[in-house]
Structures are given as structure tokens and as C-alpha cells.
């Protein structure tokens, strides 16, 4: 498969980027072309994560890159961070998910809610990819309604806590060295860092996914897990706003990332339509196919402009979670439709693994639901514009 060297940019949004933002994207794009595209099909088919890429991505600074240099991070703008997610997900949603979890759901809460000692211990190791993290919020019975969680932590004597409960659908769970775990306490919901190997803590891998096959998804099980308060408890946040604050960061990255998957499918479909001859003409010359391509590129372009504005607002510190909801909701929705339309342009070839189409389309089924389902984001936007919550 030939690799188009440039991303789709119909409206010239790259003219709004700084040189540094352009260079970040170029590094990410080259990494995906050189290291990801040649191997990702096989990993997706075999349901394995390309773990040899973890240290390479760490060297390049892909984890938590919008956190400060002081902790071994790059200190990127939010727009540069978004462009990184776009390029990674052009490779595969599993790869972007790995980086999202590591950066936005593990490093971010340690940075935002952790003690200075916790930050200094964990952030440089996580940034380098020497340690891997996961984020435990969702439970078997509590997805969209995390406030109902059953996992609980009880304060013991001598500065210890005892954690019991289980989490589900946890990206990186089985491979993580540390889990950021959210648990109910007498004091409201609190976050804990639980290290791999702590007695009573296990993380069995979930098998048999038709989506995100090149990504590890796990359960987390806590049976009388005893942790040390000073090392484990994130001291600076109480209540659901802790995990929700992390999700806002990750959703922002997803809003960019999903467009990367869509762009890969659009470009593959465009190239195919130009070279596939039926009735003595390329199928790109038929109106029905042109309409599909025109609508695909229009939705990619609108999505790009949406996240570009959101990114600039985030760089100014002047954005709301409801704005992030709109971007995540819209961009994943248009991305999955673009992948499906690309499949129709490519006919039977579209279902084959030598093309990225079905892999991306299937990945986006998970992305559509995780990090706030499409429906929940609609309700968050609905609440924002009407002032009436339809889900609480």
C-alpha cells in the first residue's frame, strides 16, 4: 500500500500552525509511516499490542507531551498534542489509545492531583515509557454513571488504605506498572496509585474483541489490597471531578485522533477510486462516488476546524468540558461514517486486511463508546444549551 505523505488539508488549517506544531506532526507522521504501518495489520489480526514501540514512543516524547519539561515532558501546545494524536490514530486507534491513557489518564492526574514526590517519582518514568500506566474508573455495572461505583477504599491504621472492588474495560491494564484507581471513600471518590504486584491486585486480560485488537484491554480486580497513603493516595482532589478532569483531557485527544483514522480511510478510498477502472473509466469519475468523496473530505475539514478552535481555546485555558464533548461526539461520529463509506467505494477490497478500512472502522466502534458514549455527549451538550440535565 502506498503511503500518502501529507494529511488531508482542504481548508489550509495548517496555515494556523506554528513551526513547532508542524514539526511535531512531521515527526509523528514519519514514525507512523516507518514503524507502525508496516506491522499494524499483523498485530490487529493476532490481537497483540506492538509493545516494542513503547520505548521508541517514549524516546520521541509522545507520552504526556503537553506536560511541563520539568518532569521530562515536552511542554507542547494543546494543538501540537492533538496533531500527535491525529497521526498516531492514522496508524491505529489502539496505538493512540495507549498514548492517550499514558498521557491524559495516568500522567495528567499524577501531575494535576499528585504530591510533588509522586510527580517526581512517576512522571519522568512514564514520559520515557520505562513505566506503563492504566486508568481504572469504569466498572462492570457502572459505565456512563461512574458516580455509582462500588469499588471502595477504607482508611486503616498506620497511614494505610484497603481497596476492594473491580474495574472493567481498562486499556493497558494487564501490562501496566501502575494503575490510577478511583474508589469510593467516606470522603467521596478518591484516586489511588496501585502498583503492579501489590498483593490482592490482579489484571486479567479480556480476549475476543472485534475492535481495538492491537490494544490490551483488561479487568482490574482488588481483593483487600493494602496501599500506603503517602505513596498511593492522590492528595489534591476529592469527588468525581477528579476522574472527569482526566477524561476531558483524553476526550480532547480523541477528537483529534478519530480524524486521523478517517483521513487514512478517505485517502485510501480516493486513491482506489482514481485507479479502479469500471466501464472503461476510473470509478472516481462517477457522480455517486464523487458525492461520497466530497462529503468525506467536507466532514474531515469541518472536524479539523472544530478541534483547531478547541485546541486554541485550551491553549488559552478558556474552554469547557461541554465543548470537548461536542468535538469528541462529532469527530468520532463523522470518522466512523467516513470509514464505512470508504468501504463502499473500495468494494470487496474494502473488507481485506491489506487495506486499513475495516480495522479503522471496527476500532472506531470502541472509540464511539469509550470516554463518554456518543449518547452521553449529546446529553451533555443538551444540558449545556437547555440548562436541563436529562441524565441526572
Amino acid at each position: 500500500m502506498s503511503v500518502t505523505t501529507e494529511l488531508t488539508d482542504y481548508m489550509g488549517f495548517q496555515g494556523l500552525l506554528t513551526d513547532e506544531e508542524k514539526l511535531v506532526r512531521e515527526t509523528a507522521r514519519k514514525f507512523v509511516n516507518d514503524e507502525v504501518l508496516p506491522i499494524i495489520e499483523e498485530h490487529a489480526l493476532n490481537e497483540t499490542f506492538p509493545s516494542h514501540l513503547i520505548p521508541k514512543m517514549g524516546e520521541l516524547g509522545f507520552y504526556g507531551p503537553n506536560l511541563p519539561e520539568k518532569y521530562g515532558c515536552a511542554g507542547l501546545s494543546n494543538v501540537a498534542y492533538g496533531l500527535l494524536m491525529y497521526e498516531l490514530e492514522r496508524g491505529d486507534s489502539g496505538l493512540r489509545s495507549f498514548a492517550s491513557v499514558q498521557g491524559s489518564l495516568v500522567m495528567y492526574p499524577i501531575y494535576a492531583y499528585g504530591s510533588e514526590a509522586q510527580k517526581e517519582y512517576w512522571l519522568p518514568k512514564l514520559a520515557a515509557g520505562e513505566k506503563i500506566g492504566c486508568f481504572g474508573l469504569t466498572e462492570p455495572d457502572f459505565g456512563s454513571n461512574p458516580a455509582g461505583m462500588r469499588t471502595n477504599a477504607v482508611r486503616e491504621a498506620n497511614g494505610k488504605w484497603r481497596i476492594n472492588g473491580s474495574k472493567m474495560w481498562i486499556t493497558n491494564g494487564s501490562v501496566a506498572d501502575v494503575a490510577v484507581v478511583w474508589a469510593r471513600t467516606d470522603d467521596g471518590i478518591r484516586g489511588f496509585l496501585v502498583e503492579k504486584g501489590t498483593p490482592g491486585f490482579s489484571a486479567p486480560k479480556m480476549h475476543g474483541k472485534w475492535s481495538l485488537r492491537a490494544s490490551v484491554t483488561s479487568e482490574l480486580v482488588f481483593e483487600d489490597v493494602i496501599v500506603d497513603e503517602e505513596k498511593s493516595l492522590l492528595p489534591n482532589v476529592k469527588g468525581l471531578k477528579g476522574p472527569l478532569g482526566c477524561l476531558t483531557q483524553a476526550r480532547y485527544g480523541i477528537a483529534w485522533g478519530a480524524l486521523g483514522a478517517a483521513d487514512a480511510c478517505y485517502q485510501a478510498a480516493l486513491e482506489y477510486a482514481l485507479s479502479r477502472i469500471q466501464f472503461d473509466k476510473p470509478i472516481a469519475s462517477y457522480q455517486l462516488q464523487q458525492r461520497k468523496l466530497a462529503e468525506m473530505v467536507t466532514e474531515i475539514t469541518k472536524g479539523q476546524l472544530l478541534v483547531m478552535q478547541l485546541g486554541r481555546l485550551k491553549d488559552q485555558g478558556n474552554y469547557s468540558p461541554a465543548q470537548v464533548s461536542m468535538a469528541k461526539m462529532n469527530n468520532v461520529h463523522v470518522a466512523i461514517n467516513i470509514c464505512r463509506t470508504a468501504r463502499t467505494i473500495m468494494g470487496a477490497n474494502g473488507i481485506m486486511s491489506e487495506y486499513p478500512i475495516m480495522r479503522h472502522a471496527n476500532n472506531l466502534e470502541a472509540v464511539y463508546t469509550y470516554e463518554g458514549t456518543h449518547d452521553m455527549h449529546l446529553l451533555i451538550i443538551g444540558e449545556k444549551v437547555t440548562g436541563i440535565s436529562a441524565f441526572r
Partner: protein
Amino acid sequence: MKILVCVKQVPDMESRFKPDGSGTWFEEADLAFRMNEYDEYAVEQAVQLKEQLGNEPEVTVLSIGPDRVNEAIKKALAMGCDRGAHIQDPAPQGKDPWQIASIITQFAQGEGFDLIFTGMQSQDRGSAQVGVLVAELLGFACATTLVGFAYADGVITAKRELEGGIKGIAKLRLPAVVTCQLGLNIPRYPTLPNIMKAKKKEILAIPVADLLKEEAVASTARFYPPARKGGGIVLEGDVGNLVEQLYGILKEKTTVLR
């Protein structure tokens, strides 16, 4: 030691090119620009030499062009160069290799460089003249199309790629200019932290008029896409006859049977 690396920003070679209004260059609107591939090998080799010498050498990266070339300069800085020199020229494509070389020479004379790296040619114009012209103008030794580079005690051992894949070894005493070819090294990625750290590095901005002292000696007469090739020949007949026809064509029109 003071090192200079000369880089050019060129369009993505996958782009669809069309002639511009003047008919002597290509239309630049809608093109994505990046560092000339051969110049990436030059940057990488310069940074490797700097590292070999305990980071003592100062590496300056120079590029001539409009403001957009700052992106290429910053990429080189993120790869490990120390400072940039942007020769501000809104229309470098109008200058011939002689003028470009003379501009670089004017800049380099004031700086006292010991070693200059550049790509063996640019991917867009492809004249492959600028490196050797700079060497001549400065009176430096020069070796082109490097696929191997070693440095010790003031002497460069350069492995060169010659016609037909033959390799040659040249030894050069400093000061010298070398031009770099595919296969010399694998350029490093600019990492995200290094991209951000490069923001703190100095980039000199010098108007091209301050350095341009020479008239052009060559000009581009016309830029045009190649004519469409005619259709192929379809041979007809039985197998024996087809072989004869093909044999005749190969004998008359090619050298494969001589």
C-alpha cells in the same frame, strides 16, 4: 571546530506540480514544504561529528528562502544544530546555483568555518552545483556524494559513490566541503522535547541583499511537464514471429544484445 550545514526547503515530492505564471518555475501555492532529503543526511552527519568530538564544535544551519524556511532551520536545530542563519529571500528560485553559492560564501567568509556539510543536490532543482561552487569560492577541499564519513586529527575519510555503484575513498584535510548522499546515515527524528528546546536557540535573520554580490550566469528558460508518452507497440503473430520481432527491436533500439 566550527561547522556549517546548508539546507534547502523543497516541496513534498509526491505533490502534483504545475508551472507558475512566469513559466520558469512551479506554482508553490498548495504545496507542502520540507527539508531536502539529502540535506537531512548532512544535518545528521554534522550532529554525529559534534557528538564524536564531545559536543565541542558549534554547528550552524543555514537556509535561504522566505519565512517558511524557518521550519527547516528549526528542524535542524531540533536534531542538534546549535544556531540558525536564515538568509531572507522571498524568491530564491530566481537565483542560479552560482548566486546561491556566492551568498553562502559571503556568509561563511565572516564566520571562519572549518567544515561545511550539504546535500549532494536539491530534490527540486537538482543541479548538484552549490556544494562544489562554495568549496571553490572558499578555496576548500571538496568531496561529493558521500556514503561514508569518518573524521580524525583534522582529516576526513570520505567514502564516495561513483558511477555505476563503484565506491571511492577520498581523504581531505580541513577546511573542507562535503556533499551527502542517500545511504550515508539514517537521520534522527526531531523528538518532541527537542523541538520545544530548539525554540530557545538563536536564528540570525540576514536580508539576502546584504550577501548577494554576483550576477546570475545561468537562467531557467522554461519549466514544463514532460510530453505525454506515445502508446506502446503491440506485437502480433505466432510465437516464433513474436520472438523475431522482439529480437529485432532489442537489437536495433537497445544495447542489451550488443
